[in-house]
């Protein structure tokens, strides 16, 4: 291109850096605000979620392909093998859907899923997911911190724990006809864990509405714990004083503890947790304490014996 010349830009034309930064911030906030209005109702799996706020939660790790994230699932309500959820979860109806927030709160409420989604700006967060079976993925989730919802519920002083309950419908979920777990699926967190900024109330992945097999229409994602702690297709969030007993704790008290933080030095009684196979990799890699989120969450457990509180 012989006729092309480097355009001259006057120094005065260049937007000063701080103004430019402010504008980005403004756009970010505007996008967030607009989102509340822009979100169309009745979103179903596969639909693109409108403009997401990019968050600081990024990872250098390569993302696990969408195909693998959505076709290799542990979701026993749709069968116990990895392929079943993708094949069977089509029968799950995600609208209408409500999430009951109750228990030790000043503002109990039955949330309609579409208004719940608009409660805060949706952001994309790339998290590692470490399954208790020693495999892992890297997934770009979409959601907002669970803390946003908890603040609005105004927990009372008695609220020490949060319990999440998954839908239990034998018609939509063929797997609950088998007594493999104590249905409905229940999971729990301590209040400080639930309030932690990493704990994500999740509505999508890869910029799309959550596929059914990944826990549509709403799930939590707690990236420093084994995958089963992150309850899917939630219908109830209950605040309580006593530590709830989760379905997996009931199924195997010596194998699945309440905390279930990713911990390479505490083995599952039947297999090692020291290493994991990242889906797509040939060689296993060492597993990291708290799944690599120790800087953010280790202080939650200071003074606790993690061998005992596994």
């Amino acid at each position, binding site marked *: 291109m012989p006729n092309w010349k480097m355009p001259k830009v006057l120094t005065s034309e260049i937007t000063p850096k701080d103004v430019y930064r402010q504008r980005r911030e403004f756009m970010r906030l505007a996008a967030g605000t607009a989102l509340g209005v822009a979100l169309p109702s009745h979103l179903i799996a596969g639909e693109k979620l409108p403009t997401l706020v990019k968050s600081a939660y990024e990872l250098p790790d390569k993302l*696990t392909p969408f195909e*693998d994230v959505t*076709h290799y699932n542990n979701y026993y309500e749709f069968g116990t093998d990895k392929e079943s959820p993708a094949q069977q979860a089509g029968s799950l109806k995600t609208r209408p859907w409500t999430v009951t927030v109750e228990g030790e709160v000043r503002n109990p409420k039955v949330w309609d899923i579409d208004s719940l989604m608009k409660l805060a700006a949706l952001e994309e967060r790339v998290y590692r997911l470490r399954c208790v079976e020693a*495999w892992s993925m890297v997934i770009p989730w979409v959601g907002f911190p669970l803390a946003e919802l908890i603040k609005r519920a105004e927990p009372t002083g008695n609220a020490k724990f949060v319990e999440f309950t998954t839908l239990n419908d034998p018609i939509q979920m063929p797997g609950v006809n088998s007594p493999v777990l104590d249905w409905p699926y229940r999971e729990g967190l301590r209040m400080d864990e639930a309030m932690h900024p990493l704990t994500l109330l999740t509505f999508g992945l890869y910029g799309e509405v959550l596929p059914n097999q990944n826990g549509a229409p709403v799930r939590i994602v707690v990236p420093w714990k084994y995958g089963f702690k992150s309850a899917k297709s939630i219908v109830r969030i209950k605040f309580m004083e006593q530590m709830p007993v989760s379905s997996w704790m009931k199924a195997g008290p010596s194998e699945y503890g309440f905390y279930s933080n990713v911990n390479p030095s505490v083995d599952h009684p*039947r297999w090692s947790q020291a*290493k994991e*196979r990242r*889906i797509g990799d*040939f060689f296993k890699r060492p597993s990291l304490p708290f799944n690599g989120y120790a800087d953010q969450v280790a202080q939650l457990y200071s003074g606790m014996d993690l061998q005992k509180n596994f």
Partner: protein
Amino acid sequence: MQQEKYLSAAKSLVFLIALIPLAKLAWLGFHNGLGANPIEKITRTTGYWTLTFLMITLAATPLRAISKWSWPVRWRRMLGLFAFFYACLHFLTYLVLDQFFDWGDIVKDIAKRPYITIGFPAFLMLIPLAVTSTNKMVQRLGGKRWKRLHKLVYVIGIAGVIHFWWLVKKDITEPLQFAAVLTALLGFRFVRWWRFR
């Protein structure tokens, strides 16, 4: 004579059929069909077929006793060797693909993981049975000793099913099915032994 010909052809056919699980795995492997966790898939599939061929092998004797046919027992050696063949693939998958010769971890697995503690010796026990499967070896050992040695397959079958039972996370449907089949096959022998004792 004619019947011998048919039986020989049928045996060849069974030989080919017994290779189908491997062929299917290979085909899936080359067509990106093993899913997100191919190593797990290969391990599970080869393990499943090891147990299946063990059960088929153990079914030969009851089948002959009930039907009076001779072919089940005449094919038994081939089927037993297929159990060994899939067990080798299963073990090699663990050794090469899963652990990649990490001997330290392998020793730890054998010592600490109950399902491997029982599965590994079960595999080892298959080796003398495979080695002594030739006619020559039967002659060298003598029928009586050979028979006694090959009773090990009962232990291997039980250990194999327990291995599967102990490794599944929660859903024991498939191990239970194998356990039911094994109970029937060993139960048949026990009842017969009890009656003719």
